């Protein structure tokens, strides 16, 4: 049994008076793939953003490889880069070329030389199958290509965990597959992944664990076979029937 890469214990989070997360408990082992789904506003993004410290939680603990994450800048700095993140809106840097987007983190945060950073960037552009777009600005790429660049940008930091927050929700339908293919390949190579998505086909293929959230709570947590065939709660059944018949 490998140790938990990420351990979330009794986490609560409020935005002002509004409680966005309620007693969240979730453990993600090294190499494990967890898919989180649930209706909009249920707190999926907030969970993911608390893991990489884009948001602060108010109670409970989140630890990464046995070290508790706090809001102290040193703790925040120690994980960023190790916990990569792919956003729904890509968030590429529009003023930089594709390859510069990929080189920035390795050079400035990891201290690689320009040459090392170029080599690493090319290697990961290869991995996401767009080696020929290196010198274009992101705006000249299709949405699917942009999201693959964003994945490559995260990979260039050689993270131990990759978080995905609805990575295909902003894409035209014909581009979803090319992004999911890249993600499946990462999964096969053993990357630890937490993916917020409504792509249930992808979830069935790669997930080791399914998590269903509603109203700031984790309502169900199960292996995919159980989750899809025998959902325990009515809320989850309803959600699945809506999403699968869509």
């Amino acid at each position, binding site marked *: 049994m490998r140790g938990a890469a990420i351990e979330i214990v009794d986490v609560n989070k409020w935005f002002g008076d509004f409680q966005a997360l309620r007693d969240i408990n979730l453990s993600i082992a090294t190499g494990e793939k967890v898919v989180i789904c649930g209706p909009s506003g249920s707190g999926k993004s907030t969970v993911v953003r608390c893991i990489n410290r*884009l948001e602060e939680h108010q109670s409970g603990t989140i630890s990464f490889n046995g070290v508790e994450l706090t809001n102290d800048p040193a703790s925040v700095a120690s994980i960023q*880069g190790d916990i*990569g993140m792919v*956003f729904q*809106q890509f*968030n590429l840097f*529009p003023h930089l070329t594709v390859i510069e987007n990929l080189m920035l*983190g390795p050079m400035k945060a990891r201290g690689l030389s320009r040459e090392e950073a170029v080599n690493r960037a090319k290697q990961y552009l290869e991995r996401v199958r767009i080696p020929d777009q290196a010198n274009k600005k992101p705006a000249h790429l299709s949405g699917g290509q942009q999201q693959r660049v964003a994945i490559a940008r995260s990979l260039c*930091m050689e993270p131990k965990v990759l978080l995905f927050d609805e990575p295909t929700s902003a894409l035209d339908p014909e581009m979803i597959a090319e992004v999911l293919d890249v993600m499946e390949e990462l999964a096969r190579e053993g990357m630890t992944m937490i993916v917020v998505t409504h792509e249930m086909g992808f979830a069935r293929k790669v997930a080791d664990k399914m998590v269903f959230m509603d109203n700031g709570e984790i309502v169900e947590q199960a292996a995919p076979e159980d989750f899809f065939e025998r959902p325990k709660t009515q809320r989850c059944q309803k959600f699945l029937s809506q999403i699968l018949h869509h």
Partner: protein
Amino acid sequence: MRLLLALSLALLLTGCASSGTWGWYVINPATDTGWTNIKFLISGMGNTILISVIAAAISIVLGLLVALPGQSKKKGWRIVNRVYVELVRSIPLLPMLFWVFYGLPIVFKSMGLNIPIDPFWGAIITLAVSDSAFTAEIYRSGIQSIARGQSEAAQTIGLSYAQTMRYVILPQAIRRILPPLANQFIYIVKMSAFASVIGMQELTRRANELVVTEYRPLEIYSLLIVEYLVLVLVISAGVRWLERKMGSDERV
């Protein structure tokens, strides 16, 4: 702008026509006195430009130093930013100039420092500080115009706050910041006229001195206004050029 120029020229010309009140001779470039006077008046231009440029350069750096704490997650830093901006914005330029020129040396002396403040640096410090509050606000709106996702993405690839600003936010904000910053330079040029009251030999001071000896305020101050007008028109043309250039870059 062009209309303004034409208007002021027309004003001058009608002035010339009714030569009873308009003493063209004081600033008539064809006569020796006139030409000497004009040279004397224009000789202030160098200092006006010099103090404006140095003050603007300081203000650009100072404004950024003031703006950054305003973006902090820590409330204390944001308060520092707000207090500075509100305070500096509320102080009229002339009292601030007097305070810096006459008051600040006393403060320095009481601290055991012997730093004299001459009119040149007195004017520059005052203009720079006064302008920095506006510059800081220009940076603020420029930085805030960059979507939050940009700094979040920078964080997730391990960039520090300073690196995020340096490599991600400011390079994008700069095209929105530069035109208003250049515009702000016009404010400094106009406000630099106040430096005349502490004895700085710039455009306005020169005009005042000539008025005292020639008793021709209408002609001399008219020329003074034209001098500022030309200066400001040249700068505005530069700003518009910059805006076009920045704007066209954005579309790429």
